[in-house]
């Protein structure tokens, strides 16, 4: 257990955290706006990976896949929202949430039909395929890229939410949706926009994760649970919560596997249980 070993674990944890952050931020803001959680969020993640795989195969360009897949998935999300979720307004949020569970069941099958049952390989771009020397440590360049991308997303989202008029509107609507509406904010439209944006981010995470984990239909079902834990632990509706939650879950999970291998995978749930008991609102809820 050398310093290099621990540094590697640290970077792994950071990389997993960044993936979780990109996944959870859309989910948490949408939750904050309307008390709605998209259980099919993981499905959009998987869909992003598959569409990215097809784009990569068709064009040979990883970068095109990285940009194109989120855009296509956002379009699909917009159609599903308009055709289904928006029309269920009257049935209530719980009905909408359960409908997204239906999308989970259907999504897996659709992906099996289109792309088959087997895991597909997804090559990292040539530029990022090697390893990097870092403080006497050899680390895959692609994973460093994931970390950098996550940090970039954090900064960009922070600027968007804290420094723009749109961001102020989102924060206001998360704080008090009714009051924001009474000032003239179209909360439903914000919600729709954030929903599609969140799905695009999930798809981005899917493409980014693909070279690390490969691509298979069940990948979305697996990632959903850690993502939801991030949302609950971090607190609903806040960027700060998404950052804190994803770092906590990423580090606790990674180091849990290293330090307590006999409890591997369980430690994050203990974290969740503790949070629910001690701070049921999560660490940084938007509505304190």
């Amino acid at each position: 257990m050398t310093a290099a070993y621990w540094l590697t674990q640290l970077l792994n944890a950071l990389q997993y955290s960044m993936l979780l952050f990109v996944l959870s931020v859309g989910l948490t803001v949408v939750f904050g706006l309307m008390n709605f959680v998209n259980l099919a969020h993981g499905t959009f993640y998987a869909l992003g990976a598959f569409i990215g795989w097809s784009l990569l195969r068709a064009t040979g360009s990883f970068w095109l896949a990285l940009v194109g897949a989120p855009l296509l998935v956002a379009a699909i999300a917009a159609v599903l929202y308009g055709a289904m979720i928006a029309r269920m307004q009257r049935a209530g949020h719980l009905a909408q949430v359960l409908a997204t569970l239906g999308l989970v069941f259907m999504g897996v099958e659709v992906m099996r039909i289109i792309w088959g049952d087997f895991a597909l390989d997804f090559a990292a771009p040539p530029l990022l395929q090697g390893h990097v020397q870092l403080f006497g440590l050899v680390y895959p360049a692609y994973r460093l890229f994931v970390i950098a991308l996550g940090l970039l997303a954090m900064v960009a989202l922070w600027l968007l939410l804290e420094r723009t008029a749109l961001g102020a509107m989102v924060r206001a609507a998360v704080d008090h949706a009714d009051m924001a509406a009474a000032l003239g904010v179209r909360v439903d439209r914000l919600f729709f926009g954030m929903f599609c944006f969140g799905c695009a981010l999930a798809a981005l995470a899917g493409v980014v994760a693909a070279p690390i984990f490969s691509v298979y239909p069940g990948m979305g079902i697996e990632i959903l649970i850690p993502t939801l834990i991030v949302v609950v632990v971090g607190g609903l509706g806040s960027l700060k919560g998404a950052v804190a939650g994803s770092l906590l879950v990423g580090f606790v999970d990674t180091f849990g596997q290293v330090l307590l291998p006999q409890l591997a995978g369980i430690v994050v749930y203990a974290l969740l249980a503790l949070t629910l008991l001690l701070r049921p609102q999560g660490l940084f809820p938007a509505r304190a």
Partner: protein
Amino acid sequence: MLEVEELAAGYGETRVLHGLSLTVARGEVVALLGRNGVGKTTTLRAIMGLLPPAGGRIRLQGRDITGLPAHRIARLGVGYVPETRDIFPSLTVRENLELAWRLGRREGPWDLESIYAFFPRLRERCDNPGTALSGGEQQMLAIARALVQNPDLLLLDEPTEGLAPIVVQEIRTKLRELIATGLTVLLVEQNFRFATPLASRCYILARGRVAWHGPAAELAASEELQRRLLAV
């Protein structure tokens, strides 16, 4: 300005309002009074479009606004100061006001500068988060946030609730000045002693309907009315 006809509203299966009618004329200050829990807040929320009415009609300047979403009603010129103030805690005082101002975009006497001039305390606190304010300051900010949109009609829900007497006095003074500019207000109050000097007419709610309405002076003079309908 505002005509409410036979308004019915409630939450889920429980009805709170069973046919309430009231009118507010341009430039008039009307008080809506009644015991705790009779449905005053519910009335304002229904007018604002935050609660879908189960029956009746609401007209604003002759235009039917029944069932319109809140953001449309806001843009038609209704300002809302809720009972809970609902200052956005993740926005600073300045952001609270700027957001409202940007969304308002209506012609009128108020802009950010004149609002700060009218509520100088808000200028001092403008970089504080919304929640770092005292109760009185929050109330001022809630009123300022509605005003900066230059509404034609202001819905004001219990502006003095939970405030110290000296702060109540301050709010009273500000409201007097505002009313003198000709602002139209529907003022909800549980404390009729605060409301009657400001209002020209009063409605008293009981059991989901208007139980009495008339000139404010009449209510101020009649202890019998006060005892029977307001339990004082």
